[in-house]
């Protein structure tokens, strides 16, 4: 017999999507780390070195905004960098994902959104193994509260939504505009600089600060810092802001991706 087992291809759409997501995420992780989980800890290196660098250069100057404590500055810079690093990694990998799998999409019918999703998924896994434990430890040391630990996941979920939304948008646009990478590098730089990662938000002139509302990462960074570093109970307004703005971005990205989807196959 060609197949000794009966074939059960009766998976529901959601099951199939999930199975695909699982194998593609694990492919991304395996390819990236060649089977050694230690490799994942290399991904911690970048934000840690950057934190050190910022602290060495700006720490002394900006400490007065952080209760005159270098340690507080280090923690603030680190939490900001964690967010920026996750965003940069997952969105720039998502950018290429649909085009990179063009050959495959021409051979097998697959839901296209699975490719940007799997890139963000691989980064979520990496985050959970690498950064998340550090963040949780810091939060526990500062707040000693279980509520804060749990609340921390809300802005993190917002972050994943933002990355998925932007990932959809970029991977779709990249099908049409293959030079998008250069432009996106610029956008990423602007988002990075306009997020108060290594400087206190207070030093931004008011006239400029108005525009920062356009940066979806700011409410997320602020909410994470408030929950993990302030030692106070989680502020619902910050969490709400980050959740709402990220949902909007997710929805925009998803709708654009769906809207353009019909045209992708002509260009892959």
């Amino acid at each position: 017999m060609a197949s000794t087992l009966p074939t059960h291809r009766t998976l529901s759409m959601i099951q199939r999507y999930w199975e695909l997501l699982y194998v593609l995420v694990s492919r991304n992780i395996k390819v990236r780390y060649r089977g050694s989980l230690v490799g994942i800890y290399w991904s911690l290196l970048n934000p840690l070195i950057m934190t050190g660098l910022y602290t060495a250069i700006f720490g002394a100057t900006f400490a007065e905004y952080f209760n005159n404590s270098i340690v507080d500055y280090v923690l603030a810079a680190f939490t900001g960098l964690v967010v920026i690093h996750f965003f940069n990694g997952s969105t720039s990998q998502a950018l290429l994902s649909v085009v990179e799998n063009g050959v495959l999409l021409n051979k097998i019918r697959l839901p296209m959104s699975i490719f940007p999703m799997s890139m963000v998924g691989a980064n979520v896994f990496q985050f959970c193994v690498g950064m998340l434990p550090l963040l949780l430890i810091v939060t526990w040391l500062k707040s000693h509260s279980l509520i804060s630990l749990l609340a921390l996941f809300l802005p993190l979920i917002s972050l994943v939504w933002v990355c998925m939304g932007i990932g959809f948008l970029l991977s779709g646009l990249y099908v049409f505009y293959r030079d998008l990478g250069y432009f996106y590098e610029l956008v990423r730089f602007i988002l990075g600089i306009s997020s108060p990662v290594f400087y206190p938000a207070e030093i931004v002139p008011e006239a400029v600060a108005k525009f920062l509302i356009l940066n979806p990462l700011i409410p997320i960074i602020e909410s994470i810092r408030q929950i993990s570093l302030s030692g106070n109970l989680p502020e619902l307004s910050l969490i709400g802001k980050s959740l709402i703005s990220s949902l909007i971005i997710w929805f925009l990205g998803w709708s654009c991706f769906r809207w353009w989807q019909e045209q992708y196959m002509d260009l892959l």
Partner: protein
Amino acid sequence: MQEVIRLEKVKLWRRTQEEFSYDLKKTVLSIAAGKYRQPAKKLVLNNVDLVVEKGEKVGIIGANGSGKSTILKVICGILKPSSGKVRVRGEIAPLIELGAGFDPNLSVIDNIILYGVMLGFSRWEMKQRVGLILEFAELEDYALVPVKGLSSGMVARLGFAIATDVQPDILILDEVFSVGDERFKQKCQYRMQQLWDEKTTVLLVSHDLDYVKEACEVLIWLEKGEVRMVGGTDEIIDLYLISSQTKKSTIK
């Protein structure tokens, strides 16, 4: 007879290839200069009607660019027709260009599972099948080796073993393949014959007319995206050869 595939007045417009060079910079500049125009589109399938019944072995022939592979992609659901209806009953297994879905950095086992899930199986089911697939491909000793470490013949064997480890209702073959050494070729042929049983509907695209003659009962002759003729294999092949001969003589 039960009908399994039906295409009704299927039209498909696609963007032409030169659009591939479009990039953001050029688009922005051309809009700024007022020279922007909508991308050109080409009609690649024009009013295609097609009915295939269960168990039929259908061959599709035609010159390069006549839309043979495109029709298969429409039937598989990879391309959506711009207008018209497509109805397919049953599970389709595309026997795709062997190895297209492999990730060279992953091990053979991981690739088997990845490929299988993409073809619509669950992970659990693929894990049950891994042993049989490895056995057929004769790659048991290479289970944990990354695919980039295999020879091209081994990769093709692996692709064939996975793709045919199914009993689909509709089998789609784009160009005939011959895999590996002589001994393995015979093994492939034997397996193809099993897949080729009465219940399986087969759609096949090939330039090899001898093979088509042997394998198919019904032929569809495509020309410039339109169905030129449908009929019995021998009759269509004769007409097809005559027409391409006259074309040759006009070139001279």
